[in-house]
């Protein structure tokens, strides 16, 4: 089987390292080969897209061209921002001749092939479409023993491109987690913004948005939030102590990557899932992932 090209992006080498660990571990147990693109650069990200769009597209396109050069058909982009920017680059290059010719010329100048149809894919959709619920269900070796979870998709994954899941009511993460026996709650905020970079730039506003999401998850009876995006995960995980302090509430819930739950259920080495990196809800994590009591402390 041809390996999936893999574009980690900066987050998965930083705050979102747990995502990378668990993703690679999960793909290993599913026998899905993954090959990292060599010499990749920043995806082009949202912040400087707004300053110099054309240059941002070129940066982003370089990654796509590198993937093509490496012979990839599919390029995995686990971070929602990377996924969106790479996908947008393809779309705009195809749709707007001016951007297209600028990007293609720049690639030529760099000795790279012109953009031509590598598929940008998010692991959620790969697991749902290429692996399928049936196979996931049949491979479960550790049934879920944790609490109810709220599946949170964030804003960038399904809009404006609804190729990973439906734009207004995505359900594929819910279905995947149901396949490993994890109970999910109806979570109306599943595509609301997590606060994004605001937690850095306008901190009180950003944290308020984090709080809204967590509060509604609690209200719906969830004991954990599961995410598909490193920024969402970081925002919801990292600010809970501050939220407790400011609101007087007692919110302390784990915020997972969906790959951590799937990896656990499908028998990946618990050490390899990056669960130790969790900031909030560590008690719940210790309980839920305690396969044998001795093992629990070892990796949490």
């Amino acid at each position: 089987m041809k390996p999936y090209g893999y574009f980690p992006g900066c987050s998965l080498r930083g705050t979102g390292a747990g995502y990378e660990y668990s993703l690679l571990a999960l793909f290993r147990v599913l026998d899905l080969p993954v090959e990292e693109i060599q010499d990749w650069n920043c995806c082009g990200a949202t912040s400087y897209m707004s300053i110099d769009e054309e240059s941002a597209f070129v940066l982003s396109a370089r990654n796509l061209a590198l993937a093509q050069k490496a012979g990839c058909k599919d390029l995995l982009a686990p971070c929602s921002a990377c996924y969106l920017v790479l996908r947008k680059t393809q779309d705009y290059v195809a749709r707007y001749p001016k951007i297209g010719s600028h990007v293609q010329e720049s690639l030529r100048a760099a000795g790279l092939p012109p953009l031509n149809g590598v598929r940008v894919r998010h692991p959620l959709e790969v697991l749902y479409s290429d692996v399928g619920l049936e196979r996931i269900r049949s491979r479960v070796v550790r049934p879920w023993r944790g609490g109810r979870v709220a599946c949170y998709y964030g804003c960038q994954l399904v809009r404006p491109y609804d190729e990973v899941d439906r734009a207004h009511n995505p359900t594929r993460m819910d279905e995947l987690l149901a396949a490993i026996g994890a109970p999910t709650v109806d979570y109306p905020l599943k595509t609301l913004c997590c606060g994004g970079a605001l937690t850095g730039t306008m901190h009180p506003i950003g944290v308020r948005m984090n709080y809204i999401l967590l509060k509604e998850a609690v209200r719906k009876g969830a004991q954990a939030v599961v995410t598909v995006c490193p920024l969402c995960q970081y925002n919801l995980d990292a600010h809970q102590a501050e939220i407790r302090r400011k609101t007087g509430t007692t919110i302390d819930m784990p915020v997972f990557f969906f790959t951590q739950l799937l990896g656990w259920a499908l028998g990946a080495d618990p050490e390899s899932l990056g669960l130790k990196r969790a900031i909030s809800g560590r008690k719940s994590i210790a309980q839920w992932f305690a396969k044998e009591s001795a093992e629990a402390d070892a990796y949490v």
Partner: protein
Amino acid sequence: MSERDGLRIGVYVCHCGTNIAGTVDVRAVAESAAALPGVAVSRDYKYMCSDPGQDLIRQDIQKFGLNRIVVAACSPHLHEHTFRTATRTGGLNEFYFQMVNIREQDSWVHEHKGAATRKAIDLVRAAARRVARHRALEKSRTPIHPAVLVVGGGIAGIHAALTLANAGKHVYLVEREPSIGGHMAKFDKTFPTLDCAACILTPKMSAVKNHPNITLWTYSEVTAVEGYIGNYKATIARRPRYIDEDLCAGCLECIDACVFRQAKVPDEFNEDLSRRKPIYVPFPQAVPLVPVIDPEACIEFHSHKCKKTCVTACGERHAVNLRAEEKLERIDIGSIVLATGFRAYDARRSANYGYGVYPNVYTALEVERLINASGPTAGEVVLRDGRTPQTVGIVHCVGSRDENTNRWCSRVCCMYSLKLAHLVKERTGAEVFNFYIDMRTPGKGFEEFYQKLLSERVHFVRGRVAEVTDWALDSSEEGRLVIRVEDTLAGLFRRIPVDMVILSTGLEPQPDAGDVRRLFNISSSPEGFFLERHPKLAPVNTFTEGVLLAGCCQGPKDIPDTVAQAGAAAAEALALIDAGSVETDPNTAYVMEEACSGCKTCVPLCPYHAISFAQAARKAEINQALCKGCGTCVAACPSSSIGQNLFEDDEIFEESEGLLAYA
């Protein structure tokens, strides 16, 4: 014309005001035509279709002895008939005429004046060469069968049928559902007068039932149509309702007697808000008032072990017949009125509004049933849990004016939303919010109705609703639905908690409109509504002669417009019938016997079985009455021994060569 010497062509280039003359140099086109062989006179004129324009042709025929006419103007679909008539009344055979389309296919679609003018010159040259080859032909007359088929028994079909029947014509009214009445039968009140829908509709429904000139077939569908204007043959499949319409007295005792004590089947007439039995009448005023058995739900059809209490209850009448089968009716008619209506947009497709997720999100049609005195709650507006809503939000344009779903305006939703706002407030005293993009109230008394609602203190928030959610920010929102919207007049985002949400769903083509379109051989607009022949000049006609349109199958419209259009369609059908016959273009194919080798290539090509093989002569023969003039056999004949009137090989060769004959 084989000899060019006698040829005297008149060429007329229309300005169409500035429609053509704005982009095409009409003078240059006329001058260029004047130099063509055989052209005796060439003119440009402001409006060729006007009386003076037509007179010009007639006078020139006399004055210059013209024997061929070319008019370069709009599409032949618009005015070919006009100019053929001018040609005929000028004293020539009307088929010595050729029309050139320099408006729809030239001046309107090109910007560069030089290029558009060159194109017009080419097209006129081609037409002048083609018309030289034209033969004198006679139109054939087809008698019109005086009966009419009306498809669809909503208010459009009912009104068309009654109009025709009152004029003494026989009408077959075919309705798919067990009762006529359509969507209108579901409403309690109609806007803007708030008169009771049933009071208007039910007398018309019973008039249909009792009219000696109407054959009413409900629970039936048209399955096949063949023929042509004046002489259509239709096949209607009448599904078994398992109660004989002729024997049933409408006592409904069989329904009471059904072994299902409780009604368990979702009642589609009440938008599934209530339950019915397997044997049922859709609503108390149904026409015909004859029950129908739903074989999906009736246990006799599954286990054959039912006690058949319905049969017993019917007793001596023997109207219940559980072994009834589908019956086919074949009828002859001269024209057809399509009144197949619309479907309400499926609100589930707008997932952000939570229909099907939150029980207190309703569609407008559901609320129509709640408000209706004979509906599931006898006219009480209550939520599914029995509570009376204190606050109600009405979301406009659900599935209308939306890039993601349907782009068109459904035309009736603003007004019915106002009506529902009024009625809900009247019944419950609730605070009512309308969320609208634009208020569209263009109709008689409509704007006044809007003003009345404003004075009734119904709230209006301008903005397309982002979402309906049960996400509660604080205790005031707990347990309620929250409407999130940008109030574009106040310039802020709002969260408005309500108890009930009403989605004003738009109007869509019926899901099987494509099949119906093919069945009746007509076209549709891009969105799937049936295409009228001309939006202004022939709004109830289609491109298929003798097939007429009425009501929402042609596009969203309210009841007054629907009734007006149904009347117009009936008038068109009456005009055909009273004329007794209709002229048809003589564009049929014919076999040139001397050249036919009897190879039979053409015989299987004809979809109308118009071509037969004469065994004695060993030649093909084309039945002129059956030929519809497509010309497929002409193109296929290996020995070029089939011709087609109006579209002869040499005419088409001349035309295409004329196009390419650059100076």
